[in-house]
């Protein structure tokens, strides 16, 4: 494989994992936008989505359904768990406590979900059955495997769909209104609590789709699989500008690309001084640098001052 072909295939790798980060970051950023809460349990929704895939694929196969249809129960389960977490844990805390209480509650929910699934499924890795088998695409020397194609296409479709939803639909506009000004939203007749619940449902549902995209390439689940994914997605959301939907997409893809390219080239570039083991540290270093230059992230708008 020539150097150039290798480079292009690394770009595709980066876009593949970047699409996963982008969808998770989208959920992070939507929830943050609407209630100013860093939902640390968000990454764990991927894990719940992945376990749901693992359990429902054989069940659906027994009914003669293709494996990918498992994304439907996975999305529903994630949306439901997201809504329950919001209604039972975050809403009472939001109405009584302060933002620190809310943050600690989010960390507690994350641990609860991880420990809960460990109690049910055990701590070890389990295998997810094959979800799709799409042949490898060969263009000259370049080979792109089916998993990469599925992830990138699905990621792009979901991102475009979310952007249209938020910009064009009545519910999407209500979401933007509530994320800006809850009192004014009430005066417009918007059901603010209902809109917050819907945002959680959609954000968590997106995590299930991210789980599908992830499991197509890495068909393994464990109770803590969402931790690192959630953290990277959080970095992506902050990099893009937390609260900004296009920012989450750009941030996710950027983190994916940075990660994949550093893994591939950092050893060669630095003459072996920095190895690819540092790729996660580099991702965070880039985040810090970007935030020093642009505190509101790549696409975030500085908070407009309230009178």
């Amino acid at each position, binding site marked *: 494989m020539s150097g150039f072909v290798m480079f292009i295939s690394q770009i595709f790798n980066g876009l593949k994992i970047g699409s996963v980060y982008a969808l998770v970051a989208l959920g992070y950023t939507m929830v943050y936008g609407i209630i100013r809460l860093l939902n640390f349990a968000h990454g764990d929704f991927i894990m719940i989505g992945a376990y749901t895939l693992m359990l429902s694929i054989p069940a659906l196969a027994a009914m003669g359904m293709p494996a990918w249809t498992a994304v439907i129960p996975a999305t529903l389960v994630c949306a439901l768990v997201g809504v329950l977490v919001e209604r039972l844990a975050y809403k009472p805390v939001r109405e009584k406590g302060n933002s620190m209480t809310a943050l600690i509650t989010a960390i507690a929910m994350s641990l609860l979900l991880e420990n809960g699934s460990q109690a049910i499924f055990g701590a070890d890795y389990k295998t997810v059955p094959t979800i799709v088998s799409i042949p490898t695409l060969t263009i000259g020397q370049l080979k792109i495997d089916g998993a990469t194609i599925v992830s990138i296409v699905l990621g792009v479709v979901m991102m475009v769909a979310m952007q249209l939803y938020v910009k064009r639909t*009545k519910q999407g*506009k*209500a979401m*933007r*209104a509530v994320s*800006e*000004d809850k*009192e*004014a*939203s*009430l*005066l*417009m*007749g*918007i*059901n*603010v609590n209902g809109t917050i619940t819907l945002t959680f449902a959609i954000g968590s549902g997106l995590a299930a789709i991210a789980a599908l995209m992830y499991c197509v390439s890495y068909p393994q689940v464990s109770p803590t699989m969402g931790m690192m994914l959630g953290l990277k997605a959080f970095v992506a959301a902050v990099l893009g500008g937390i609260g900004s939907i296009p920012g989450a997409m750009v941030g996710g893809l950027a983190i994916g690309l940075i990660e994949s390219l550093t893994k591939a080239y950092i050893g060669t570039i630095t003459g072996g001084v920095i190895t690819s083991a540092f790729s996660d540290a580099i991702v965070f270093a880039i985040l810090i640098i970007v935030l020093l230059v642009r505190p509101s992230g790549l696409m975030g*708008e500085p908070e*407009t001052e309230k*009178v």
Partner: protein
Amino acid sequence: MLDIKNLSVSYGAIDAVKGISLHVDDGEIVSLIGANGAGKTTTLHTITGLVPARSGSIVFNGQDLLKTKANKIVTLGMAHVPEGRHVFTRMSVQENLEMGAYSLKDTSHVAEDLDKVYTYFPRLKERRRQLAGTLSGGEQQMVAMGRAIMSRPNTILMDEPSMGLSPKLVKEIFRIIEKLHEEGITVLLVEQNAKMALSIADRAYVLETGRITMEGKASDLLHDEKVRKAYLGA
């Protein structure tokens, strides 16, 4: 008709409104004037359900507003232009106006209503694609009023629409309030600019530290010695 009886509102230990009664009849402009912290905004917030009442009653066209969810009140035909405008800064002017029509089931008049708002405020038409956060204070006030008009209200509550505006813009805003009144819209107007507020109102109430201390025909209050001293700087 809006009828408030013995309304009390508190924020924790702070009593902001202490047993006020007031009413606004259909087709009237009623002004509520008073100094900073008198409880004017609190009164309007309680009417539209943004703040809970401690005791008393608020009835609007036969509906008990204290038992109505905040987001349902606009569907009864009551719009509220809040203090400080509260426009959606990251939406365009036109999107803000369209949000005003959010509660309408029948959306067939939205385009026509938009045209109406743009004839009231031609400046908004030029800026319809601009983000509302980038508008001047006066233009944001126009957006907030236009947004209220878009909900096809029969009653509008306005909280200090003249705040921070140049005398010329204040005149323009008040001219629109009079126009709305001529169209048959009932107005409850909260103002610190007592002179303007009294000059366009039918009746008025004076609120002092949570209590109504005076009420009557606006023209009478405009010439009342105490009102002139306290609120008209004369």
